[in-house]
């Protein structure tokens, strides 16, 4: 299931604006990789480039190489739609489909693609995904109710269930807890710890403790000034990044002496 990602000399543009410059990074399977860095340094941009969501924005493009288990994701003949099926994404703000019930939200990945699947199999899949997202017990009696009627934390876990229901190889999360209270945050962090057995996870976070708690590897992005591109400064095992980073900038940032 879980796959590795290799970025080589990746440049990411919005039109003529170079947002992220020259990122080379290896993401190992079945690990949690945290991306940290100041606002505007291109963490989200990099994350979205990994499942080709970046190009949805008009004028946005990518140069360099990005490989999923050795396959060039930006190679000719690669359909971005299939890339996104293998690399799922959870967004900063929970965004369940407002017209769909909880059940339909989880089933959306398959239903929207008109994948033929027996009702019984779908029930099993929905239950398994909701269990994996630690949401099953809370919603099993109201699967037919709208997903928009839940609390923010539940909605975010619903979005995670929706993302893993299509059985991706990699799960990208862009500040998945920034809109949540500490208890929901903890629930999601526990969830990430469990999911790591099956998926490769990349998470963007502004919360140093969170990065320290959930990730195995941490990458620090930085930006020299406004208008300059963001760069990957340093990437290492999380323990090391927080105790004895090689770069001064990293040390300043993780210890809160930034800016």
């Amino acid at each position, binding site marked *: 299931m879980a796959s590795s990602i290799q970025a080589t000399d990746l440049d990411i543009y919005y039109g003529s604006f170079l947002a992220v410059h020259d990122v080379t990074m290896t993401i190992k399977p079945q690990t949690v990789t945290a991306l940290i860095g100041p606002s505007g340094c291109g963490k989200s941009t990099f994350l979205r480039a990994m499942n080709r*969501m970046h190009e949805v924005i008009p004028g946005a493009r990518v140069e360099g190489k990005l490989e999923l288990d050795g396959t060039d994701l930006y190679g000719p003949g690669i359909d971005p739609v299939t890339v*996104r*099926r293998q690399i799922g994404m959870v967004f900063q703000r929970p965004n369940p*489909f407002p017209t769909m019930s909880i059940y339909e939200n989880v089933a959306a990945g398959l239903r929207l693609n008109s994948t033929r699947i027996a009702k019984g199999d779908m029930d099993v899949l929905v239950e398994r995904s909701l269990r994996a997202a630690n949401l099953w017990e809370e919603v099993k009696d109201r699967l037919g109710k709208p997903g928009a009627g839940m609390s923010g934390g539940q909605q975010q876990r619903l979005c995670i269930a929706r*993302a893993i229901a299509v059985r991706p190889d990699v799960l990208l999360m862009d500040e998945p807890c920034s809109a949540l209270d500490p208890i929901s945050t903890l629930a999601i962090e526990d969830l990430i710890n469990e999911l790591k057995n099956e998926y490769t996870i990349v998470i963007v976070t502004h919360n140093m403790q969170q990065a320290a708690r959930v990730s195995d590897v941490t990458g620090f992005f930085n930006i020299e000034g406004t208008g300059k591109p963001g760069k990957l400064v340093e990437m290492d095992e999380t323990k090391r990044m927080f105790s004895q980073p090689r770069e001064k900038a990293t040390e300043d940032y993780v210890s809160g002496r930034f800016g």
Partner: protein
Amino acid sequence: MTTTAPRSAERAVDTPLTTVPRVGGVLPRWGTWAVLAAAAALVGGLLALVGFSISLFILATALLFGVAVYLWSRVIEGRRRAKDRLVTITVTGAFLLALAPLVSVVVTVLLKGLERFDPMFFTYSMSGILGPGGGAYHAIMGTLIITGLAAVMSIPIGLLAAIYLVEYGRGRLARAITFFVDVMTGIPSIVAGLFAVALFALFVGPGARLGIMGAIALSVLMVPVVVRATEEMLKIVPNELREASYALGVSKWRTIVKVVLPTAVAGIAAGITLAIARVIGETAPLLITVGLTTAVNLNPFAGRMATLPVFSYYSYASPGIPREAFVDRAWTAALVLIIIVLGLNLIARLIARVFAPKTR
């Protein structure tokens, strides 16, 4: 009444913020109504002396009422509250003023239209009728058929154009379409009629009168309205939903059909219904493209048809004898039109309620 309390509005400024400013006096709840009654009585009494006039009565009462409430409130409640009351009165007054013509129209059409609002009106045509009696069955069917045809042609075109503009359109072509849609929204309806006449003069020869010509003229008027309404609705669908769908590996087209459109369908349906309501009462284009008959013709591809607006127009403009019979039918046709538009609005609301995203 607690007139002993300090006047809070002025006082609040220089009292320290640590103490909550005390509320000043308040007009009694019946206060404004009492002032209104007093103003009406006073103005009525004065006018009775010089000769009564309803418009003058309303105007003078409103003015006196506003001034009196303001002054009273000013003395007891302070400046801020007094202003608030004055604005409330002004806004309410403006609302009532705007409502007046609407109510007047509905009441007039109801009173005059009910005269012939009978089963015969809905079951008989005018074929062979020279005086009283007869009905507008042919015109009602004509209006439904022609408007229906116009809707069938305009809705897919308008929907797809709006989807193109919001989801795909970039650059020159999109801007050009937006521009032409804007221009077409303001096109006078007679121009649409003339366009249909000119178009059919090419194919069928001059002087043709067909239901389909009217439908085409109406859809020229309808398409831009549908495009505009749909465009607005698609634009307010949050981008996050599209991205959520893309991130599940759903293609763009499926995302539009299965996520964007269902999310916006309530508003789109309402917009389409209003677009239909907008064209169903058009007279001028139908006058020159469809004409009028006295007999039932349900085939929009052969010969003239009757429609409610044109029926109403001719009944009123060139009545026969006795005149009342024709004028009554004109009003009833107008009433039926209003009822149809009302029904369309109710349907739009129903659709909006059924499809609206639910939270519980």
